[in-house]
C-alpha cells in the first residue's frame, strides 16, 4: 500500500515537473481551456443570481384585491372580516381610494391632471400576503376571493415571475447542454495534447513496455497530466469570472438602483467552486483516458 502511494506521489511530482518544464505551452493551454470553461461557469453564475431573485419574489408575494368602485364602508368591513378570518392570510393592508390617488399623484407628477377629474377613478384595495405562496395556493385564494360580491378584481403579478421561472428552467437546461459540450471540448483538447506528448515520448514508452511496464503504468502520468491541466483550467475560469464580477457588478448595481432594486451577480459559493474544479479535473482526466487509450494501443 505504501509503495502504491509512493508511486502515485512520485508520478504526481514527475507530472508537475513536466508541466513546469514547459511553462509557456502549459500556460497557453490552460488559458485556452480556462477561457472555454468561463462560458458555462459564467452562465451558471447569472442563473444562480436570477434564482436568488426568484426566491426573493416568492418570499414576498402580494395579492391585490380591488373593490368595486361603488363599494361602501359596509362592503369594506365585510371583506376586512373575511380576510381576518381566513387562515391562509398572513397579513393584509387596506389602501383607501383617496390614499391611492394621492400616492399616484405624487409618483406620477400629474397632480394637476388628476385634480381636474370629476371623481376619484381608483377603487379601494386590500394588499394581502399569504402564508403559503405557492402558485396553486395563490390561484385557489384568488378564485375564492373573486366570488365575494363587492370584489371587482384580484391581481397577482405572477406572470413575469412565472416567465422568470420558465427562463431559469430553460437557462438551466441550456447551461447543462453548453457545459457538456464545452467539457467535451476541454477533454478533446487535453486528449490531443496528450496524444502529441505520447508521440514525443514514444521511445521512452517503448522501452518501458519492453522492460515490464503495464499499460496502466504507462497511462498513469498522462492521467495526472490531464487531471492537473483540467484543475488548472477550472482555477483560471474561476479567477477570470471573479475579476469580471468585480468589474461588472458596479455597473449592474447602479443600473438596478435606478429601478429601486438591489440586484448583483453573486460570486461562486464554496460548493460551486468545488463542482467547477472537480468537473474540470474530471474533463481533463477523461480527455487523458481518451488520448492514451488511442495512442498507447498503437505503440
Amino acid at each position, binding site marked *: 500500500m*505504501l*509503495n*502504491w502511494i*509512493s*508511486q502515485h506521489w*512520485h508520478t504526481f511530482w514527475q507530472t508537475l515537473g513536466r508541466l513546469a518544464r514547459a511553462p509557456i505551452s502549459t500556460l497557453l493551454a490552460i488559458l485556452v481551456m480556462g477561457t472555454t470553461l468561463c462560458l458555462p461557469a459564467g452562465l451558471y453564475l447569472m442563473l444562480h443570481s436570477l434564482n436568488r431573485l426568484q426566491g426573493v419574489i416568492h418570499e414576498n408575494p402580494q395579492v391585490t384585491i380591488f373593490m368595486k368602485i361603488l363599494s361602501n364602508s359596509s362592503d369594506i368591513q365585510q371583506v376586512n372580516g373575511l380576510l381576518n378570518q381566513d387562515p391562509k392570510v398572513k397579513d393584509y393592508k387596506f389602501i383607501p381610494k383617496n390614499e391611492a390617488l394621492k400616492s399616484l399623484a405624487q409618483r406620477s407628477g400629474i397632480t394637476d391632471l388628476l385634480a381636474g377629474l370629476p371623481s376619484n377613478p381608483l377603487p379601494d384595495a386590500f394588499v394581502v400576503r399569504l402564508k403559503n405562496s405557492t402558485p396553486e395556493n395563490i390561484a385557489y385564494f384568488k378564485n375564492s376571493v373573486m366570488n365575494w360580491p363587492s370584489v371587482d378584481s384580484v391581481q397577482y403579478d405572477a406572470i413575469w415571475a412565472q416567465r422568470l421561472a420558465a427562463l431559469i428552467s430553460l437557462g438551466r437546461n441550456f447551461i447543462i447542454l453548453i457545459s457538456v459540450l464545452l467539457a467535451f471540448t476541454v477533454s478533446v483538447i487535453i486528449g490531443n495534447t496528450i496524444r502529441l506528448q505520447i508521440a514525443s515520448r514514444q*521511445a*521512452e514508452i*517503448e*522501452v*518501458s*513496455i*519492453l*522492460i*515490464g*511496464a*503495464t499499460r496502466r*503504468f504507462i497511462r498513469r502520468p498522462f492521467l495526472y497530466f490531464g487531471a492537473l491541466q483540467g484543475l488548472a483550467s477550472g482555477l483560471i475560469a474561476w479567477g477570470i469570472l471573479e475579476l469580471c464580477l468585480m468589474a461588472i457588478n458596479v455597473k449592474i448595481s447602479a443600473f438596478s438602483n435606478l429601478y429601486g432594486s438591489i440586484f448583483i451577480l453573486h460570486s461562486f459559493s464554496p460548493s460551486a467552486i468545488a463542482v467547477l474544479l472537480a468537473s474540470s479535473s474530471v474533463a481533463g482526466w477523461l480527455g487523458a483516458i481518451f488520448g492514451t487509450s488511442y495512442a498507447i494501443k498503437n505503440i
Partner: protein
Amino acid sequence: MISLKQVSKRYPGNLEALRDLNLDISTGEAVLLTGRSGAGKTTLLKLVSAIEMPSAGEIMVNGQSITRLRRSQIPYLRRSIGIVFQDQKLLFDSDVLTNVTLPLHICGQSRSVAMKRARAALDRVGLLERERSLPVALSGGERQRLCIARAIVNRPSLLLVDEPTANLDPDYAKAIIDLFRSFHQAGVTVVIATHDIEVINRFPLRQIHLDQGRLLNHTGPTTY
C-alpha cells in the same frame, strides 16, 4: 528455466525466422547463442522475453508457458528477465541514474529503494561516478555497461543479452563479458547472442548454433 518445443516463427511475407526449434536451457546455465546475422538469434531472444509470439510450438520460461500467457501477464514475466538489447534502447534525454531506476519504478519500488539499488547496480558495472551524465556523454563501452546495469537492477533470474560486444574495442568487450561471467557465477541464467568470434573463442560456454532459423548443434561445456 527455458524450454522450446517445435518452435517456429514466421513474419509477414512468409519470412521464416525460426523453424522447428527444440531447446532446453537449465537454471543457472550460461549459453552462447551463435550464428551469422539473420540466423534467428534476436528472434529467439524476443520469443523468450515475449516481445514476439511464436507462430507455432510452445515456449516455457520459469515454468510459465509464454504461448498461454494472457496479454496482461506479459509485463510481469518481463520483470523477471533482464534484457540487454542490441540497439541499447536507452532514454537519451534522461540521466544514467534515471535510466537504471526505471525498471524499479515499473516494479513499484519506492524512490529511496530504487535509488539505493540503482546505485548498487551502477557500482557493479563501474558507472557510479557517471550517475548524473546523459547517455550521449558516455562512451560505447559505458553505454553498454549502463544497459547491463538496467538489466540487472531488478535482480533477474534470467539475463538475455543481444550482441553485447558489437562495436566495442577488445578491452571493453572483455570487461563486458567478465561482467556476465560474474552474474553467472552468482547463479543467474545467462543467454548471450553473439557472432563475435573473439567472445566465442575466449569463453568456453555451451554454444547453441543457429543457421537460417534452424538449430545446427550444441557444442562446448555447459558451465564454466
